[in-house]
């Protein structure tokens, strides 16, 4: 089943294009890695699919509907540093947030079933032991996994993740990438992930989209991660180095590698 379909999509802010001429489609169970430099339009595209931004031209369908019509099927995971951590919420309360807004307006008490499910998904992301700890006291990787668990509470069929690896150390990146892999393997949820560092995510990615205010390339990882394509976005100094059977693309301060080799 087709999950996302974009044709001649141009996203604008106050009438000015932020991202132009985007054509792509994504099928159920696939994971799209959305790559590009700062200001390329990655978050803009993600927020438009999530129905937070509604100013666009062209065609954009999510599960065959306008993005806002498919909201119940979408789980959105923001960057953890965009949250207000002054609010004293525990990890379990943050996760439960993802499951209570389909019913009722006032939520003085979290229903028992919601709490049980929240504990289950926290266990799924490997954080059952921190459920009573304050969200703000968790490590960066743990916070990101709590937000993933929150998104899973609504049983989404499409997960949108905004820079899930940003500001994380290498071990935390590996932890989060591991959980994303588990979600893909065990739940088969379609995912769109924006990232600067494609390196830890290549195992989970079925498609890669490279954008820089417009669509540069879209396809399978081995099709998109070509020397000429990378250079067209990151400049002539970007290059590809083979190391132990893997290819590392050096793009200034952003390093991209892909598994396997050949051809570059």
């Amino acid at each position, binding site marked *: 089943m087709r999950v996302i379909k974009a044709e001649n999509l141009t996203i604008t802010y106050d009438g000015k294009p932020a991202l132009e001429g985007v054509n792509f489609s994504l099928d159920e169970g696939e994971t799209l890695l959305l790559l590009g430099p700062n200001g390329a339009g990655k978050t803009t595209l993600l927020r438009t699919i*999530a129905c*937070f931004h509604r100013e666009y031209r062209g065609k954009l369908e999510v599960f065959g509907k306008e993005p806002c019509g498919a*909201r*119940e099927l*979408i*789980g*959105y995971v*923001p960057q953890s540093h*965009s*949250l*207000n951590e*002054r*609010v*004293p*919420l525990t990890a379990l*309360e*943050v996760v439960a*947030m*993802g*499951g*209570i*807004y*389909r019913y009722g*307006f*006032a*939520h*003085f*008490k*979290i229903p028992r079933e919601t709490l049980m499910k929240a504990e289950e998904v926290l266990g799924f992301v490997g954080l059952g032991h921190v459920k009573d700890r*304050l969200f*703000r*006291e968790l490590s960066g990787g743990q916070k990101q996994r709590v937000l993933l668990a*929150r998104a899973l*509470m*609504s049983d989404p069929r499409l997960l949108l993740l905004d820079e899930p690896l940003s500001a994380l150390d290498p071990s935390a990146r590996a932890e989060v990438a591991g959980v994303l892999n588990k979600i893909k393997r065990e739940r088969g949820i379609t995912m769109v992930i924006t990232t600067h560092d494609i390196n830890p995510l290549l195992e989970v990615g079925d498609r890669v989209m490279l954008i820089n205010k417009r669509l540069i390339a879209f396809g399978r990882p081995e099709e998109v991660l070509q020397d000429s394509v990378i250079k067209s976005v990151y400049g002539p100094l970007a290059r590809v180095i083979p190391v132990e059977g893997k290819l590392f693309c050096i793009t200034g301060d952003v390093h991209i590698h892909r598994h396997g080799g050949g051809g570059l």
Partner: protein
Amino acid sequence: MIPEYLLRALLASIMVSVLLGMLSPLINTKGLAFLTHALFHALLFGAVLGMIFGLLFENLALVMLTALIVTVTIVLLIAHLEKLGFSPDSAVGIVASFVAGLTVLGFGVLYKVMATRPYFPLGESIVSYLTGDIFLISLNSLTVLVLGGAFLFFVMLFLYRDFLYLSFDPEGMESYGGNVRAYLMVLYVLVGAIGTLIVQTVGLITLQVVAVLPGAIALMVSSDLRKVIGVSLLLTLGIQLSSVVLAYLTDIPPSGLATIMLGVIYGVLLFRR
């Protein structure tokens, strides 16, 4: 034997403490201090306008009603400007400047109206909206405060978790099906309504402090939600009751005492950090 007026003042203090003690952590976590100040200024404009109507129509019950209507209208105006794309601070700034101008004009009109009606109850003096007159609270006003306060308290209690989630991650709330605009609107209206209900007992100047500092102090000393609310409630209650008793004994205005005590506690905590 406790004088009746003191008993009324103590009861009013308890209600004020319960409302502000609960509200204050929300104001701090949501970052509504600037909006709260603007709303309480709107209250003054509403009270001036209400006083004009009250004197003209010889019905001083119009004061609170007008203040409530003006405050809620201004809340809706701020929310509308935010919807049009203004940042929250800009929206508040624009409306607050406009309201400040109207308040000054209103005072000019009020003085003219007052000059034609030299006799009206002391408890309805416009100055009481600035400094508070908790010892002059009438039985009727106390009844309105307790009943209205209980209603607002339960609304706030039942929506407290939602307001916390709204403060934590409004986009997340929206993406999971929460109506962010509705929650925000209810929260703004609650702040305005609570202010309207208690402004005459504690005064506008003190209200601005007591609505913000207990929550700020509670968030400094604890990170557990229940403890934060508990500290805020107990602190507000302690400050309000002790300021009333001290005022009774020393004849110093209780609102001034409450403001100074809270300021000192906050300052000491800041210094110790």
